[in-house]
């Protein structure tokens, strides 16, 4: 693996490691963005109104059972090769954990704080945006980071239908019986997953109020 990974020839050109890494990162980030735009408002709305919670939980579980490979292949058969099938498959993978995290997070906000928010004269939109969502952020991030890990790992499969990303090394290695290339691909994916998670952990630290950190870490008493 080391020999393949550190061969300078594999680090340049349109099929080199940097390009595949960026492709993989691109799939991941755009997928997460689309999934968040769908899942966070949905989870937050249902969490806020308390209506349809059963549907959200059921939908999340059903989507979790969906095999990504099958979705990818189906969309390819229907719409042709390209990046579109990859995004459909990965977004369907990322939506359930983000939606479930958002829903659980909003439901878990101290009902006293929500009551007080209404009581001091916030409108419903204010209650949701200024109290419920900020307080739900730790759980939203929990679902989001879980989704990110899954998406980074699963984006590998995109290469099966000829798309790019680090999965190329795995499938090309498999086709050519090049063990070093396969292993290098796998290690790069795991490494990227760890880096992406670190990135979101940093973002979480920046955007979640220190008042919501576990007791005793929010500052001096």
């Amino acid at each position, binding site marked *: 693996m080391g020999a393949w990974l550190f061969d300078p020839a594999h680090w340049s050109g349109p099929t080199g490691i940097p390009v595949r890494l960026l492709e993989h990162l691109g799939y991941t980030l755009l997928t997460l963005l689309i999934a968040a735009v769908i899942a966070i408002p949905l989870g937050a709305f249902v969490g806020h109104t308390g209506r349809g919670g059963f549907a959200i939980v059921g939908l999340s*579980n059903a989507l979790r059972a*969906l*095999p990504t490979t099958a979705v990818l292949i189906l969309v390819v058969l229907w719409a042709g090769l390209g990046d579109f099938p990859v995004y459909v498959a990965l977004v369907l993978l990322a939506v359930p954990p983000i939606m479930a995290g958002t829903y659980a997070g909003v439901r878990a906000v101290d009902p006293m704080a929500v009551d007080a928010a209404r009581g001091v004269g916030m409108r419903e939109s204010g209650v949701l945006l200024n109290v419920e969502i900020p307080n739900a952020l730790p759980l939203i991030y929990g679902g989001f980071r879980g989704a990110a890990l899954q998406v980074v790992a*699963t984006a590998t499969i995109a290469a099966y239908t000829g798309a790019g990303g680090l*999965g190329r090394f795995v*499938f090309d290695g498999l086709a050519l019986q090049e*063990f070093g290339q396969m292993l290098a691909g796998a290690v790069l994916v795991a490494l990227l997953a760890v880096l992406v998670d670190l990135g979101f952990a940093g973002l979480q630290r920046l955007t979640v109020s220190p008042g919501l950190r576990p007791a005793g870490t929010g500052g001096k008493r």
Partner: protein
Amino acid sequence: MTWILENWERFWEVTAVHLRLSIVPVLAGFALSIPLGWFASRSAKARAVLFPLANVLFTIPSIALIVITPILIGVKILDEINVIVPLVIYTVALMVRSVSDALAAVPGNVIAAANAMGYRPLRRFLTVDFPLALPVTIAGLRVATVSNISMVSVGALVGLGGYGQLFTEGYQTDHTEKVLAGLIGTVVLAVLADGLLLLIGRLLTPWARAGR
């Protein structure tokens, strides 16, 4: 749907393989995660090692693990063990945390009362701690089972059995119905397994719903 009816025998065959490839790792992984989870619930040091390790294992793509396994343990690429081992690893990675959280959440006063009445450690674990930890543990087991059933298909990308074979064959022959059949099979299996575990959980923990 017509494909399933017209090819009932083939469908039944891949279903059996799929079931075997997903149930065996769940059982093995669950069995392994009980002692590990117990250990993690007792020791902060064990947690500091096991939890990050579980997270890292989770980040390895399943397809990669499936192709690496045969080389690591020296079997042929078409051996079913190549799917089973990665899925055992994922199951353990998921369940260690569930079991540990579940055991840690057993009320301290219950444990103190059991100790005060003279339970020895093993008996207390089997008859007090573990039963009380079951609801959370089973919730974790449901997630692990559903994701295993969905993940078995990945094995087909390297030529292994299960519904995944229908996906790859359907892809190669441009046969949408075949892919759909596998997808429906996977989802139905997942829903059935999830419902079964839910039911088992309810039967095993009648107290969890008392007083509601």
